[in-house]
């Protein structure tokens, strides 16, 4: 479980739409659990949530990790039990699903588009079990699966706008792990945000590393492991003048963070979670993060199973429903003038209201 000590903080900070309602039992559960005497009773009745990661692993600084944080939050707040299995390869998905069904998990959370087929098959074969999948939606929806998808370009749009406002060189940059939709949607939103800024302000801020015309073109590390590569990509972007960089590449992004920290004259935009909290060592350079609240949505799904309101279907995380968010600017809020903050708030409203339409 990543970032254990910090895990509680964001839980407080995340104003997920339905969160307040749930927070009630939080206070009670741990108290009940304390006495050791009750051990056998607790073990039998314990509500079990099981996560299957995709091959990126539980510490991917991305959806696997964020979803697991939702389960961890539920462990502390709702007193449930959580387990995970890290997939080594595609063939593991089905096997792990079977293992968890065998284990009697009350909810199985799978992560990523690639587990979609296996999850659907398991759900069909086990209609009494509850599933949820992150970053994937079924069409038509499946009765016992909650698909969680995110319109991530919305929050990335805000980040792009902010970046364009903050840049001094007039150049910002981004790179991805692999040219795949869940990655490129961040980059696309980011570029659109910058373009919107240019349109509104008549500026000429340039984005390096992504091409709106062709989503397969752009700067990619082609790897989610090689942090050194991430570092060199960031260096390359900075060399070309970029002073705000958004890496969309899991842990590879941390390599970029290290490079930016070293140069000290550029800013980082985190993705998925609030990097100011999950990677505090880079707090000083983290401008903001494009948050995709998979922890919150996962938490919601767990709650719904707990209180018996679970129904299948798809949740689309948007700015409107709090499934997406731009993280606070934390230490760098000085860079954001009140005016700019107001503009960002306005844009957020416009997106929610459909006044700004993303491609």
């Amino acid at each position, binding site marked *: 479980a990543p970032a254990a000590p910090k895990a509680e903080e964001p839980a407080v900070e995340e104003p997920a739409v339905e969160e307040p309602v749930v927070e009630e039992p939080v206070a009670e559960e741990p108290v009940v659990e304390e006495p050791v005497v009750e051990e056998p009773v607790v073990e039998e009745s314990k509500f079990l949530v099981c996560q299957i990661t995709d091959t990126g692993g539980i510490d991917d600084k991305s959806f696997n990790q964020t979803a697991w944080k939702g389960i961890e939050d539920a462990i502390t707040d709702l007193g449930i039990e959580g387990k995970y299995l890290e997939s080594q390869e595609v063939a593991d998905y089905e096997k792990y699903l079977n293992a968890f069904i065998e284990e009697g998990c009350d909810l199985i959370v799978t992560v990523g588009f690639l587990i979609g087929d296996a999850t659907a098959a398991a759900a069909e074969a086990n209609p009494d079990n509850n599933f949820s999948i992150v970053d994937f939606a079924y069409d038509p929806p499946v009765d016992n699966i909650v698909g969680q998808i995110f319109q991530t370009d919305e929050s990335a749009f805000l980040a792009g706008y902010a970046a364009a406002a903050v840049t001094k060189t007039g150049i910002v940059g981004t790179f991805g792990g692999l040219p795949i939709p869940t990655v490129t949607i961040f980059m696309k939103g980011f570029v659109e945000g910058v373009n919107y800024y240019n349109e509104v302000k008549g500026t000429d801020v340039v984005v390096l*590393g992504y091409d709106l015309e062709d989503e*397969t*073109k752009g700067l*990619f590390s*082609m790897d989610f492991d*090689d*942090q*050194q590569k991430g*570092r*060199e990509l960031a260096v390359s972007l900075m060399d070309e003048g970029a002073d705000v960089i958004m890496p969309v590449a899991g842990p590879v992004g941390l390599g970029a963070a290290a490079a930016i920290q070293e140069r000290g004259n550029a800013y980082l935009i985190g993705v998925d979670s609030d990097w100011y909290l999950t990677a505090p060592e880079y707090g000083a350079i983290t401008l903001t993060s494009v948050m995709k609240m998979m922890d919150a949505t996962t938490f919601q799904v767990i709650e719904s199973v707990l209180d018996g309101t679970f129904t299948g279907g798809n949740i689309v995380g948007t700015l409107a429903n709090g499934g997406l968010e731009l993280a606070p600017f934390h230490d760098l809020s000085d860079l954001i003038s009140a005016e700019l903050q107001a503009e960002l708030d306005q844009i957020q409203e416009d997106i929610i209201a459909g006044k700004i339409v993303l491609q």
Partner: protein
Amino acid sequence: MTTRSQIIQRKKIYEIPPTRKLFLGIVELLIALVILLGFVINTEPNTLTRFVMTPGGIDIGKMPDWVIPTLPTLIILTIIPALIGLYQLVRGFGRATNGMVGLSALCLIFGFITWQASGTSVNLAGMFTSAVLLAVPITLGAFSGVLSERAGVVNIAIEGMMLMGSMIGSLIGSITNNAWIGLVGAILSGLLLSLIHAILSIKYKINQVISGTVINIFSAGMTAFISQKYLQTNQALNSPPLFTRIPIPGLAKIPLLGPMFFNTNVFVYLTFILLIVIQVALFSTRWGLRLRSVGEHPRAADTLGIDVIRTRYEAVLLSGIVAGLAGGFFTLGSVGRFNEGMTAGKGFIGLAAMIFGNWRPLGAMGAGLIFGFADAIGSKLLLLGSAIPPQIMAMAPYLITMIVLAGFIGKGDAPAADGEPYEKE
């Protein structure tokens, strides 16, 4: 034992086979054609390409930008390989053949960059600096291989040692909050694994490739295990301090070269120091002579009173130290954090660089740099918005290695006793 025939005549025949001559000539003409059709005709006249000769984030050693007119440059770059190709077809270059092919390839690469950056700028110095850093782990891995294989012990465990070194480096560096102690930890972990390799392959004489495989699998498993068990649950164990850039007074101010070599990471310095140290130690000292003798003909060394076993232990342990150091680079010199599989095959590529560099430190470094450059150029082209898909661009370093190996480098001279256990009678 076949006796080599003595040299009859010192006159050598540098005859390049006619098919090869033809083939290379055509390749060179094709390069010219690609530059012409791909770049020249797509270039507006009067555009300029600006090459920035100072990497970003550097305030010493500045050098003026280098601005060239795009079209004339590209035309020159077309003419060079065209002339080379024609001459190759008609007369042939003899000994210089490989160099000429290399020159044509350079024209292609440089033309590509010039064209991509036409009308804007590209930071050439930054690319070079990145290339050097990308070459570091590969070169260190290759050095590690040179040390052990020169003494006759094949070391395919470099990847495993590097992976373990990066994990331990991060762990110890985090606990002590000191990068140097972390580096010592990384080195020690490499040393320990190499001790296992030495015991298995020298004492127990098990096949050296098997022994290396053992260590690779063990390291992959162990680092993942520890990472999941401890590093992920406790970030404090995985955030070591990072070595930062140390400018060398005076030298750092040299334009272009300063930022590349004298205002950089301590690992780059160590790599160059090791290059000199290993090169000198292997070829100019008593120790090196003995070490190489053990790798060439251990029985002969033995009859002269050289302790073959001991020498091989020394070599393998040193190899482990260098591999551990290379591992430390990832977490302590580059990104300040460990994640599973973060060495991403650099150890194997280092091995390739060693073979490529003919078991010599200088050659190994050259090979490492070729790799680093291919990687850096690829990223730069993507960044400039190249039409080549990123997946294909990412193949460049591997393809270049294969092409160079196939076309331009003769069979390497591996140490004669490389891979053979020594059986003292």
